[in-house]
């Protein structure tokens, strides 16, 4: 049995006038939680649907659990996968339990419906119609439908998009429980905190390509600075130049961000006093000053010059 749950090389997909995936390589190890992080339109959904065998690629090679799509064994392969799609709306007139039973009936082996109800914390909603569930409950049910076959590999496409913080946390807990059983997860997200918390490794995807791939910790460390100082001035014309800012003690990199500036630093205690001194000598007044620990968002910004949310 191969060590990798998922492998793809040189994946390509073009729609009428856009290239959705432009030569993408990935390898996901068994037991791993792997994240595809990128802005909307980066090609994450196309990539995951190619891996799920729902979209055929224009080029490239895909291997899922040691099998390939379209070799006459697709149904056997599907029985080993759990899939949650981004846009699926389950039948609103069926109850939670009926929906899970329906999906369970498609798999030759798998979990008991009652166990899945417990796993996704929907026991109390067992008899409720899907149409009456909250967004978070619907999403947990969708993941539950992906879990009924006791999959070796779970695909989740933006599982927490549009959910409130508490619902997101419940879904994260659910994934942690699934992984405790040894399952592999591939998920897409445009939430950096989600990728940082859930994923063992993250591929940052932009314009249909992987532009960085590593553990979240290593990606953040690649910035060479664990903190970001952001400031804004009352009068922009008094601002120091980028090179002046970059030359401040403790500052590794400086860049404008809209009407603000961001300084990457590993030594906030040196950078901030130096910044304040410089501004004072220029007679500039701060209207805003914050510092935060560097995140995958900052990695994305330093790689692309754009933010995840508005890219």
């Amino acid at each position: 049995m191969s060590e990798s749950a998922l492998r793809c090389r040189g994946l390509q997909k073009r729609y009428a006038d856009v290239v959705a995936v432009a030569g993408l390589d990935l390898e996901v190890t068994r037991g791993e939680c792997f994240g595809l992080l990128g802005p909307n339109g980066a090609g994450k959904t196309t990539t995951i649907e190619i891996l799920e065998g729902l979209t055929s690629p224009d080029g490239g090679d895909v291997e899922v659990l040691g099998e390939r799509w379209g070799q006459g064994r697709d149904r056997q392969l599907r029985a080993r996968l759990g899939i949650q799609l981004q846009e699926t709306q389950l039948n609103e007139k069926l109850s939670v339990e009926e929906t899970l039973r329906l999906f369970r009936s498609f798999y030759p082996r798998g979990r008991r419906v009652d166990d899945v109800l417990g796993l996704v914390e929907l026991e109390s909603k067992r008899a409720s119609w899907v149409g009456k569930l909250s967004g978070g409950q619907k999403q947990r049910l969708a993941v539950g439908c992906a879990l009924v076959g006791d999959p070796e590999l779970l695909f989740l496409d933006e599982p927490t998009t549009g959910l409130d913080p508490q619902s997101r946390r419940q879904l994260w807990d659910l994934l942690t429980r699934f992984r405790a059983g040894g399952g592999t997860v591939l998920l897409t997200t445009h939430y950096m905190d989600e990728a940082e918390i859930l994923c063992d490794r993250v591929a940052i995807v932009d314009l249909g390509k992987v532009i960085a791939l590593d553990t979240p910790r290593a990606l953040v460390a690649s910035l060479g600075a664990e903190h970001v100082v952001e400031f804004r001035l009352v009068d922009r014309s008094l601002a120091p130049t980028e090179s002046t800012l970059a030359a401040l003690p403790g500052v590794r990199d400086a860049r404008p961000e809209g009407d603000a500036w961001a300084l990457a630093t590993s030594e906030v205690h040196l950078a901030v006093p130096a910044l304040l001194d410089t501004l004072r000598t220029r007679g500039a007044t701060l209207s805003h000053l914050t510092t935060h620990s560097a995140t995958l968002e900052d990695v994305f910004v330093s790689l692309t010059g754009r933010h995840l949310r508005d890219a």
Partner: protein
Amino acid sequence: MPDRADTYPALLELTLARLREFIREPEAVFWVFVFPILMTCALGVAFRSRGDQSSVVAVVDGPGRAAVEAALTGVPGITVSTLPPGEVDRALQRSDVQLVIEPGTRPTYRFDPTRAESRLARRAVDEALQRAAGRHDQFTARDQPVETVGSRYIDWLVPGLLGMNIMSTGLWGLGFSIVTARTRKLLKRLVASPMSRRDYLLAQLFGRLVFLVVEVGALLGFSRIAFGVPIHGAWTTLAITCLVGALSFGGLGLLVASRARTVEAVSGLLNLVMLPMWLLSGVFFASSNFPAAMQPFIRALPLTSLNESLRAVMLEGADLAAIGGRLLLLAVWGVVSFVAALRLFRWR
């Protein structure tokens, strides 16, 4: 991890899901079960008292009016009114009156000869006026009114309504549920699981058969109780006819819904498929009304086969052998549609 499946086989679960989805949709229940009964009721009432409907004839005001009116008094089936000369055209146009009489030594009858009521009114009026003018009848025949159960319009209508209902619930029911599942990306989610695609399509058909029992039972039961519509043939023959019809239109419904991406698109297609059959296949009036050149086409339509089979069984007591050819044609429509649908079906 227990391997014991605590669900039914997939085909049964899919069929159950289809049934639940349907009965939990009050609008669907109305259109499938209540609407045909309301329609039968309305048409039955409208046509039940056809024979004793009286025609309205109007006498134009002027010299001779009183004489004509006197001659027409007491003529059965005729109601007489008076009309000022200026309003004759309008009254005829609006069909307020079926015949207008302009009195005189040679009276003038104005009427639309394409309307049966007007032609009847003309004969009744003419006879009454001829008698008043002195004509002698050689004899007076005895009238013996007959209302034979089984040969009334309602008896002819109910099998047609039944056929139409089997067609429209098959086409609308399957078309809508499938296209809705497609637009909601539910089909895509289903094929992302190891579900058998054939099971899914078969479940849609099987779901139809369960409704069929209720829908046929409701319509036939109602028309029997309310209008005494008879069923001369065997129940089993009638059941088989309905079954073949439902599967045939179910297959056609799957085919119509196999590619459409939106509810609007499938509605248009369904209307395109159903409208010719509504008109041509003898639901409300006999398809023999259409020119001979069109008959081969009309006879090839599945609803024509179904309606003719239903009428043969219900009104003439035909057995399976007698309608075998028609049922075979229906079955061919169904099988070809189902196979084509399975091949063409767009799952995402």
